[in-house]
């Protein structure tokens, strides 16, 4: 006997059947509004974090004077690259990538080649970071971290505040000696600076005791073999942490 099979229902019939049976329910508008708000908030948090990290890198470079190292040619560029706070730089790049993935959701971004949006975000991060780095935020946080009142970012600030960068040494000339100087570092150490004919000095500059200087070079014990020296006046003013934090400190008791 011939067996008659029921015709397979069309996609339309199956879809309507599932909708009628309540197997598919329309989301409310509030659901999408919440989703959009959450997404925007995430992007905002990522952007703020990126700006914060970039500004911290810029702050450390400016505060230490490391960003002036490339003035001394290839050796200076090498010192600059070797001394960069790579962990922070990599964290910045990580945030940039995650942010790029998130903003690809918007037509303004995905309609353009990736290189354009990445460059645009890099510019925003650097300009924004530079603006934030000029505010008293990081000096205040550094000050707070050194007092032990900054739980999360504290170790980063303390590591920078205690050690600075290994090949950049800011300080004050205390004595001019034959073949070099005695310098008091920012941390109060008494260091010997070897100045040789190879040491690059700013043209037409006479150094005397009391001058604030930036020494670039390798440190061995208490002696620095200077390959480049700049007077602080030649460099933009450094942001010295204020003696008292403008932010209210939590009680440590």
């Amino acid at each position, binding site marked *: 006997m011939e067996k008659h099979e029921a015709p397979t229902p069309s996609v339309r019939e199956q879809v*309507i059947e599932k909708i009628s049976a309540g197997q598919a329910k*329309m989301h409310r508008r509030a659901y999408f509004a919440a989703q959009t708000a959450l997404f925007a908030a995430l992007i905002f948090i990522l952007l703020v974090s990126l700006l914060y990290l970039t500004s911290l890198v810029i702050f450390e470079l400016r505060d230490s004077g490391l960003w002036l190292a490339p003035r001394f040619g290839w050796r200076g560029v090498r010192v600059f690259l070797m001394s960069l706070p790579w962990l922070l730089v990599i964290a910045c790049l990580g945030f940039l990538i995650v942010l790029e993935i998130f903003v690809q959701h918007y037509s303004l971004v995905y309609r353009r080649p990736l290189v354009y949006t990445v460059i645009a975000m890099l510019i925003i991060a650097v300009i924004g970071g530079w603006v934030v780095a000029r505010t008293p935020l990081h000096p205040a946080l550094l000050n707070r971290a050194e007092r032990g009142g900054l739980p999360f970012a504290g170790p980063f600030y303390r590591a920078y505040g205690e050690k600075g960068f290994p090949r950049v040494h800011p300080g004050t000339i205390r004595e001019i000696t034959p073949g070099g100087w005695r310098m008091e570092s920012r941390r109060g150490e008494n260091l010997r600076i070897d100045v040789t004919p190879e040491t690059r000095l700013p043209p037409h500059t006479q150094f005397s005791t009391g001058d604030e200087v930036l020494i670039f070079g390798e440190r061995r014990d208490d002696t620095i073999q200077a390959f480049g020296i700049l007077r602080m006046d030649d460099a933009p003013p450094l942001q010295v942490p204020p003696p008292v934090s403008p932010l209210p400190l939590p009680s440590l008791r």
Partner: protein
Amino acid sequence: MAERTDEDIAIQVQRGDGQAFGILVERYESKMLRYARRFLFGYEDAEDTVQEAFLKAYVNIRSFDPKRKFSPWLYRIAHNEFINTIKRKRREPIPFFDPDVLFPHPHSRDHADRDVIANDLKTTLHSSLQRLPPKYREPLVLYYFEELDYREIAEILRIPASTVGVRLKRGRSALRKIYDTLNPTYGKT
């Protein structure tokens, strides 16, 4: 009386008329099935995937902006569903990052001679489509079979329009190579 637009019907569905969604399904059922069968060539569950795409469209219909066109929105949902199917089956790799979207490409426009090329190409496409990677297969299907323009394809795939042009060009050359390999005597007589 003029036929109601997709967007008008979508508004009706957004207001809670679930049955009106049937009209939209009816209008797009054959297109979506064609898109699925060509893009998911060799995948046995094209119909289930299309059904799933329609149900997703229904669930998310209130996120559709009626000021924009309905069809690219629906195609986008279908595209996501198809890509998920390919990922689930793990038969073909879907790269997370496509270098084609990285740099700007010389501005390429829709071909005015699409129909002439299309007739030749459609025959080739039928026999060789499944051998193309999904990255090139999908724009070819959307352009030559669904007859969408570069801008619409770019919206569906969420890539720059110039990248659509690049993928179509590379897809066509890849297709020609595949076809020549399968038919070594083609064009030599």
